[in-house]
């Protein structure tokens, strides 16, 4: 490890501490209900984008069907809460992890089938799954059909309501980020990266490609299921076309891209910025038809100017600055080099 990289560690740790502090006190400082609502949505998307990135960012397989897991989590929470007669309020939150597990279980068969395909086909299969689930939810009796389901509504006051949901979402976010960090740092994570770079070579080196991909896929579905559950509980209503929403799929992919695909902080940043801006935009300017044009143009501009996303661009910049000032080789770490591939396969 180069000196420059070692020097970055305390800076990173400091940034993490600051971020956690902000996360913790945010709703207390900015207590306006509009802000806390938007913050809650931002957290939901941060969880989802981060989890999505854990799979798609690292493996290179772009999944556009994670709404399946979002929706399954939402429906799982609503069905369980209603059938088990769980009291509205804090008890229902206990169902959030359960919803995550349900989503993970659903990810096993859907993932197995999708992952047999090559990259382009994989994308379309994930989309197809999304529509299948949406149609099933709209037409099966126990899912409430097109009228959807309503989980119990907690009887909290305005501020308490938003704050409680915010903190639960914040906890889920921290857990998700820890998960993505652990995966990234582990040998498993390296194996994923080698699959992205060259699947055939990875297989040749002994990486158990199918198993690795599937595990990553299922792991990425669990937080998304939890996000869906919290979302349904917050709104107090779940309809099939909003639970299984193709726009959700595109949004989380966008957020991860803009932040920086494959990075840890990228999806967080992307989700935070995109969701907040979108909500804000719609409230202030949604009434004008030009809103869509502005939104699209902004997108395009950001994507074309920062094709690798914000975080990698910033890192690159810092790296270049260090090169100029220190005069030593301090380029950004390149994942997927041969040494890593060999390590990932467990070969010494």
């Amino acid at each position, binding site marked *: 490890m180069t000196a420059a990289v070692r020097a970055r560690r305390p800076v990173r740790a400091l940034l993490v501490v600051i971020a956690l502090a902000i996360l913790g006190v945010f709703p207390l400082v900015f207590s306006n209900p509009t802000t806390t609502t938007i913050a809650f949505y931002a957290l939901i998307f941060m969880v989802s984008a981060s989890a999505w990135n854990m799979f798609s960012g690292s493996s*290179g397989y*772009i999944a*556009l069907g994670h709404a399946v897991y979002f929706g399954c989590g939402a429906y799982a929470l609503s069905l369980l809460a209603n059938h088990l007669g769980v009291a509205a309020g804090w008890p229902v939150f206990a169902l959030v992890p359960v919803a995550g597990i349900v989503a993970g279980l659903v990810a096993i068969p859907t993932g197995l*089938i999708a992952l*047999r*395909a*090559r*990259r*382009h*086909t994989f*994308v*379309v*299969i994930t*989309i*197809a*799954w999304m*529509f*299948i689930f949406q*149609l*099933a939810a*709209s*037409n099966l009796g126990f899912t409430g059909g097109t009228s959807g389901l309503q989980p119990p509504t907690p009887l909290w006051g305005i501020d308490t309501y938003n704050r409680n949901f915010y903190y639960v979402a914040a906890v889920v976010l921290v857990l998700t980020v820890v998960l993505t960090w652990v995966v990234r740092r582990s040998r498993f994570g390296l194996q994923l990266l080698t699959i992205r770079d060259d699947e055939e070579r990875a297989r040749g080196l002994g990486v158990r490609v199918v198993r690795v991909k599937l595990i990553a896929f299922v792991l990425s579905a669990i937080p998304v299921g939890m996000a869906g559950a919290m979302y349904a509980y917050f709104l107090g209503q779940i309809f099939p076309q909003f639970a299984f929403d*193709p726009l959700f799929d*595109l949004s989380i*992919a*966008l957020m991860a*891209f803009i932040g920086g*695909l494959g990075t840890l902080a990228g999806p967080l940043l992307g989700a935070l910025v995109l969701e907040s801006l979108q909500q804000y935009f719609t409230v202030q300017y949604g009434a004008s*038809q*030009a*809103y*869509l*044009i*502005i*939104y*699209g*143009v902004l*997108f*395009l501009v950001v*994507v*074309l100017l920062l*094709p690798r996303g914000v975080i990698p661009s910033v890192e690159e910049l810092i790296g270049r600055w260090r090169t100029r000032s220190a005069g030593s080789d301090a380029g950004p770490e390149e994942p997927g080099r041969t040494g890593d591939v060999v390590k990932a396969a467990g070969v010494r």
Partner: protein
Amino acid sequence: MNSTALAKAVVDGILTGGVYALMAAGLTLIFGVMDIINIAQGALIVLGAYMSYVLSVHLGIDLFLGLFITIPAFFVLGVGIEWAFMRRLRDQDRAAMSILVTYAVAIIIEGLLSVIFGVNFVQLHASYTDSTFHILGFYLPYIYVFGFLLALVLLGAMYYLLYHTHFGRGVRGSLQNRTAAELIGVNVNRVRALSVGLGVAVTAAGGMVFGATNAFNPSSGYDLISRLLSIVILAGLGSIGGALIAALFMVTLEDVVAVLWSPVWATLVYYASLIVVLSFRPNGLFGKAAVRAQ
């Protein structure tokens, strides 16, 4: 269930399948040649429908004659999109980035159309849009038959272009291996630009037929794109003939299930059949075996 209804469902499926093949043709070309997942295809179809609308309503030009204007215009648009956006995508992340970029393009198109035309639904009309051929006890609407024939003509032309011309060889060469193609003197950038132009040009025709058979507004593109992607993948990337067959198959299957069972489950069967077929033939019905990424 009486057999007339079943027969009608098959006939409807074939005719509508032709319309879908027309809409998907451009997509398969762009997807196959450029490695680009064009999410904007739905929006482009709607744009084509609106262009035909303007020509028909404000200038009184017949829907099919108007294609002589819209198709070239779309060709230029396609080349422009390739030059402005797609060329900037690096080859490595091309597929992934293309989703973002084309999604943004789709939103911009929808926004522009909303501003210009408003959100109310319109439909393309002509004196013949409700008339039908009466054959063997079936009523076959002119517009669907013409659309089907147009699909055959344009798909045939594309096929000829790709397999029997110098240009087409260049296109197929760049699909296989960009570096090798460049080495033998193919101007890959030009080939790509022209391919996208071609793909988008055909979409203008798809837009017109779509607009004549459905009421539409600027948001109508979303429902289309997922079906078109399914058809293209089922066919196998870059396969023109495959796109026609896949479209006919999928739409007919859906229509038959709608009659035999129920329309809501028919759509589910549509997507499920896609998954089933892809499980056995991961490259699509007519796709080539794995092409090495460039």
